[in-house]
C-alpha cells in the first residue's frame, strides 16, 4: 500500500524526525488563516494545500508576503478560487500558512532506484533544478565527505560560496544530507521524497515544503 504525504503533514513528519522545518499550519477558513498568521507573526506566506496539486506555482497557488490580517483573508479567498478553477469538484485540504524562509533555496530528495537502491539528490532550487538539471546523486548511506562532494559537484557551487553568501555555512548542508541519509536507512517505508525548497542561510537550514511517499 502506498501513501502520499504532502505539505503540513510531510513537514510534521519530518519535524518529528528531528529536522528543522518552517513553522506551518493549515487554515480551514479566512479567520483561521488570520489567527494562524498572527500566531506565527507577519509577514507569512500562504499556499494551496491539496493532494491534487503537485506544483503549486502551476495554478498560482502561492502568496507572499502576507503582511496583515486583511491581506491574509484576501489571499485565502484568491487561493481557494484558483484551486477550484483548476480542479473543479476536487477537495482542498486548506491553505497552508507558513513562516517565510530566507536564504538560498536548495532541493534535497530521495529515490529508490531499481538497481542502486536508495539514492540521495542535492541541487539548488528554482531554475537550477528545473532548467539545467544541475543536481548530484549519491547512493545511500553517505558520509560527510560524500555530502561535501555532492555540494561541490554542482555547476552552481560558486553561488553557494559567493561573497553574498559568505555568512552561510556549507557545513549545515553537509550535516543535513547525512541526516537525511540516516533517516532513509532507518525508514525503509519511505519510498520517495522531495524536500523542495530547503532554505539555507546564516540563520540555519529549514525545510519549507516536502512530499513523501510511503510504502507499506
Amino acid at each position, binding site marked *: 500500500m502506498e501513501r502520499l504525504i504532502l505539505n503540513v503533514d510531510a513537514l510534521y513528519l519530518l519535524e518529528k524526525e528531528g529536522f528543522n522545518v518552517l513553522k506551518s499550519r493549515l487554515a480551514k477558513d479566512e479567520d483561521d488563516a488570520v489567527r494562524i498568521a498572527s500566531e506565527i507573526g507577519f509577514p507569512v506566506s500562504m499556499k494551496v494545500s491539496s493532494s491534487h496539486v503537485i506544483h503549486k506555482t502551476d495554478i498560482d497557488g502561492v502568496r507572499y508576503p502576507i503582511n496583515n490580517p486583511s491581506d491574509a483573508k484576501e489571499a485565502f479567498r484568491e487561493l481557494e478560487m484558483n484551486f477550484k478553477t483548476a480542479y473543479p469538484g476536487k477537495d482542498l485540504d486548506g491553505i497552508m500558512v507558513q513562516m517565510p524562509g530566507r536564504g538560498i533555496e536548495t532541493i534535497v530528495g530521495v529515490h529508490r*532506484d531499481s538497481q542502486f537502491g536508495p539514492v540521495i539528490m542535492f541541487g539548488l532550487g528554482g531554475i537550477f533544478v528545473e532548467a539545467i538539471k544541475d543536481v548530484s546523486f549519491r*547512493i545511500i548511506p553517505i558520509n560527510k565527505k560524500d555530502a561535501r562532494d555532492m555540494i561541490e559537484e554542482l555547476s552552481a557551487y560558486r553561488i553557494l560560496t559567493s561573497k553574498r553568501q559568505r555568512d552561510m555555512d556549507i557545513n549545515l548542508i553537509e550535516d543535513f544530507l547525512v541526516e537525511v541519509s540516516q533517516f532513509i536507512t532507518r525508514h525503509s517505508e519511505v519510498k520517495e521524497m522531495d524536500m523542495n525548497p530547503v532554505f539555507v542561510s546564516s540563520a540555519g537550514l529549514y525545510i519549507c515544503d516536502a*512530499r513523501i511517499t510511503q510504502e507499506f
Partner: protein
Amino acid sequence: MKIERLKKLFSPESVAVIGASDSFEKLGYHVMKSLVKGGYRGPIYPVNPRADTIWGIKTYPNIKDIQQEIDLGIVAVPAGMVPSVLHECGEKNVKGVVLITAGYKEIEDFQGEILEQEIKDIAEGYQIPIIGPNTFGFVNLTDRVNASFTYEFSLIKKGGVTLISQSGGFCHLCGFLAMEERLGMAKLMSLGNRVNIDFPEALGYFLKEDKSTRVIALYIEGIDEPRKLFETIKSAGTKKPIIAFKAGKSEKGDSASRFHTGSLAGNYNIWRGALRQSGILEVKSAEELIDTAKVLDICAPIKGPRIAVLSGQAGPGIIAADAMEKEGLRLSRFSSETQDRINTLLPPVAIRTNPVDMGPAWYSPETMLNILEAVLEDSDTDGVIFIAMFASANLELTRRMAMLLHNIEPFKKPVIACFTAPAGVWDEDIEKMDGQKGLAILHTPERAAKAMANLWKANLTMDGNRWRD
C-alpha cells in the same frame, strides 16, 4: 568463488580448446592461433572429434580423453553443444572456462535466456568460473596467455594496466588504440554475459590477487547489482587506481515518478555519483581511458596541482597551459633559484617564465634536458609537461634526447611529454623513450594536460580527498 580457480583460469598451466579447428572460418581456428602464435608456454590440447591434429598439435576427440590436468578450457562450439561440453569440463575437473559461444541472454529470442540459465546451473554444480558466454575471451599479457579469438592482442606492450570490459568490441577498440599509443597492459577481457564472473568478481581478483595489475580500467554498460561492485572496492582496501568509462549515458529518470528527484534520477546521473563516491575516476572517451591509464601506470604520483610547461615552441605550451587550467591544475611559479638556473640556460630572447619557451635551445637537447632537471628540482613544481614539435632543423632532437635522458624516477614527479612529427620521423625514438625512466608520451598538448589532471584527481581520490571539476 575460489580465488585458486580464478588464478588457474587467468594464469593457466595448461589449456584445452574445445572446438579447435584448422579452418579459418571457425573461431576455434583463431583461438588456436592466439595461443600458438601468442607464445603460450604451457601445453595446448585441441579437442575435436573429427581431427587427429590441429595447428600441428595432437588433437583429442573429447576433453575427457586427455590424461593431463587442464586448468583452462576455451569453448568455441555451437550453442547446442555447450551444455554437454560444460558437463565434460566439470567431470574433467577443468578449473575455469572461457565460453566464447554466443546466442544467449544477449539475443532477442527468449530461448537465449533459458539456455543461459542452463549454463549457469551447470557451472554452479561443478563450481566452474566462466568468462562469458558471448565473449572474445581474455588476454593475459603478463604470462603470454592469449585466450581469445584475436591473436593481434598479443602484440600489445606488456605493462600494468588491466581492462575489464563488458563489451568485446570495446576491448578491440582499446586494444588496438593501446598498440598505437604504446600502452602497457597486463590483462584485457570482455566479461560477456557474466554468467558467474561479473564485475565484482573480476575487479576483486585484479585488485587483490594480481600483482602485475597496477591500474584497472572498467568499461561498463550496465550492471544488475551495482552496489556489489562498490562494496568490492571498499572491502579490497587496496590503493590501485580504478578508472571507468560508463556507456549508455541515459538521463531518463523514472518516468512514473511525479517527484523531482525521481524524474531526475536518470541511471547515468546515479552512476556518475556512485563512481565518484567509490573513488573511481570517470573517463569520457576511449582515448581518455588510454591516456589516463598510461600515465597512472608509468608516472610518479603527483602531489599537487602546480605544473611546469616546457615547450620547444611557445604556442603548444600555451595550449597545454590553457587546457590544464580548465581541468583544475595551474602553472607553477618557479622559485627564484630555479628561474636563475633557467635564465643561465636560455638567452633572454624568449619567455623564460612558466610556460617556458625553450625555442632558443632548439638545437640543444642537452639544454632542454637541463631545464627539465631544473624544474623537476623546483620545490614549487609538482609535475611537468614537456612539448616539442618537429621541424626539419631539429630532426635529431628526439634521437639525442633518447640517448641523453636520465632516469627521472628519483625526482618522484610525473613528466608527460608530447612529441609531434610526421609519421616515421621520430617514431623509433619516441618508442624508445615512452614508458621509460618515468616518462609518459602522449599525442597532443591537450591530451597531456587532461591526463595530468586525471593523475591529480586519481591521486587525490586515493588519498581520500576530492577534486572539483
